[in-house]
């Protein structure tokens, strides 16, 4: 008797169901690629309206990612400290935008920052500032839906990091801020980068909150997903071309990250120990 696992009816069935699972996720993308007018793709993507939407999408997603890093890393640091009370509740709150339909996020942002919103009404009365229909509104919508990805990834990295080095630095007299800046953050930098890349990709794909809160105007608020939705009814080939570009961008980011997308996962942890060991 060998220890090699035998293929039984049960494992074959499991394999077949798993293959069906892969098909559900991959076949729609195959259909998209099959429908792509490859010979005209460059022309379609070089259309000024598409270039404008792409530029706006990349710019706003980069701003949103920067904002998420500034706000999200300290938030992740707080969440990673089990000693603090209420972190469980806080983590649930941070996770809400992950499971909330984005259009609901858009409605909520509008009720907060719209011209008659809770805060928006005062912004207009005191400073003459209105947020909807501006690129800033796009960035805010993206931050709302994308920040949880960054926070949870960075929190996982912080939890996976070796605490002993931070403790050693502390016993040598370093302040908590100094330890965070010079010891902990460099150690979790790959995790932060992975979180930022995920955050950026999610921001690129944002649709529901943007169209509801920011509106749709070329060059100001019409990002690629909004342009895809509009083009689907009027110029389907253009919609397909833009979809392929967004798909390519997302795949590039995910391939660059490979198994590292949540630093706290066992695979990611093993990869990190190998790096530390080498």
């Amino acid at each position: 008797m060998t220890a090699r696992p035998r293929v039984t009816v049960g494992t074959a069935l499991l394999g077949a169901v798993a293959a069906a699972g892969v098909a559900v996720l991959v076949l729609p993308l195959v259909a998209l690629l099959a429908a792509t007018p490859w010979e005209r793709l460059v022309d379609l993507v070089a259309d000024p309206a598409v270039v404008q939407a792409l530029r706006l999408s990349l710019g706003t997603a980069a701003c949103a990612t920067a904002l998420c890093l500034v706000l999200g890393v300290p938030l992740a640091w707080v969440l990673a400290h089990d000693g603090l009370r209420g972190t469980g509740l806080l983590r649930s709150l941070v996770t809400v935008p992950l499971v909330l339909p984005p259009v609901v996020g858009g409605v909520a942002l509008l009720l907060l920052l719209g011209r008659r919103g809770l805060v928006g009404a005062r912004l207009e009365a005191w400073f003459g500032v209105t947020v909807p229909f501006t690129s800033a509104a796009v960035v805010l919508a993206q931050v709302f839906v994308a920040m949880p990805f960054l926070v949870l990834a960075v929190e996982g990295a912080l939890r996976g990091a070796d605490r002993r080095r931070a403790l050693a630095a502390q016993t040598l007299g370093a302040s908590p801020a100094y330890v965070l800046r010079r010891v902990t953050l460099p150690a979790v930098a790959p995790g932060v980068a992975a979180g930022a890349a995920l955050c950026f990709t999610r921001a690129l794909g944002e649709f529901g909150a943007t169209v509801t809160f920011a509106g749709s105007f070329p060059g100001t608020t019409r990002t690629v997903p909004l342009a895809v939705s509009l083009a689907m009814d009027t110029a389907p080939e253009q919609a397909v071309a833009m979809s392929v570009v967004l798909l390519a961008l997302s795949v590039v980011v995910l391939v660059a990250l490979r198994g590292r997308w949540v630093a706290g996962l066992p695979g990611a942890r093993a990869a990190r120990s190998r790096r530390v060991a080498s």
Partner: protein
Amino acid sequence: MTPRATGTARARLAALVGCLAGALALGGCGAATDARGAPAPTGPGSPLEGTLVVLAAASLTDVVTDLATALEQEHPRLTVETGFGASPALAAQVLGGAPADVLVTASPATIARVTDALGGTAVVVAANRLQLAVPAGNPGDVTSLADLADPALTVALCAPEVPCGAVAATVLARAGVTPAPDTLEPDARAVLTRLRLDEADAGLVYRTDVLAADGLVEGLDLPAHVQATTDYPALVLPDAPHPAAAAAFVALLTGPDGRALLADSGFDLP
């Protein structure tokens, strides 16, 4: 005998409801008094059954829903399923093979894409005109189309790719106004929402949308020489699974009851 008796009773009820609706419509709008067209070729005895699928432009939601209910009451074994949305999206669904019986769009150009591909003849059932719309109380103090060019005002228009945007472009060109919109929405109802929420100072939407907004939005009529309308063609799809029921629905839409409902909702009649 019992089912038939029930059917007759329901038909009587439906007729009564129809009369009441018609009477209300007549009281509300004189245009309905010159209603023409033969009565719908249906009756309690017509053997219409199954599920009729009607796809219609979002602006027809109320009218088509009412007519669907009336047709169902007249034919107890018939179910009418309705789908509403932006006309180009509905046309794309039909061209993509969605099993529908009747399509009513907010622009002849949109339905032409369907008849060119599938055949069939569309019949114009109504027309809609634009109004300059402002939130209740007119906070932006908007008085004419020229105000749409004021960069200080927040202006919402339909995207030129969709029917209401195309009509708006015609109106603005005739008026010689170059607008300064802050957002180009995917349909007229989205523009209406911006106005209802007071997020925009002015926009161009259909007169029917202003009426549907129940006082939250005020509409200003446009000067006749710049006004442009869009026709609403209805089409019995050539490969409709239920051609008889589809014909009955279009007959209802073009008949006295349909015309009364359309006029009551603010549509112009052909």
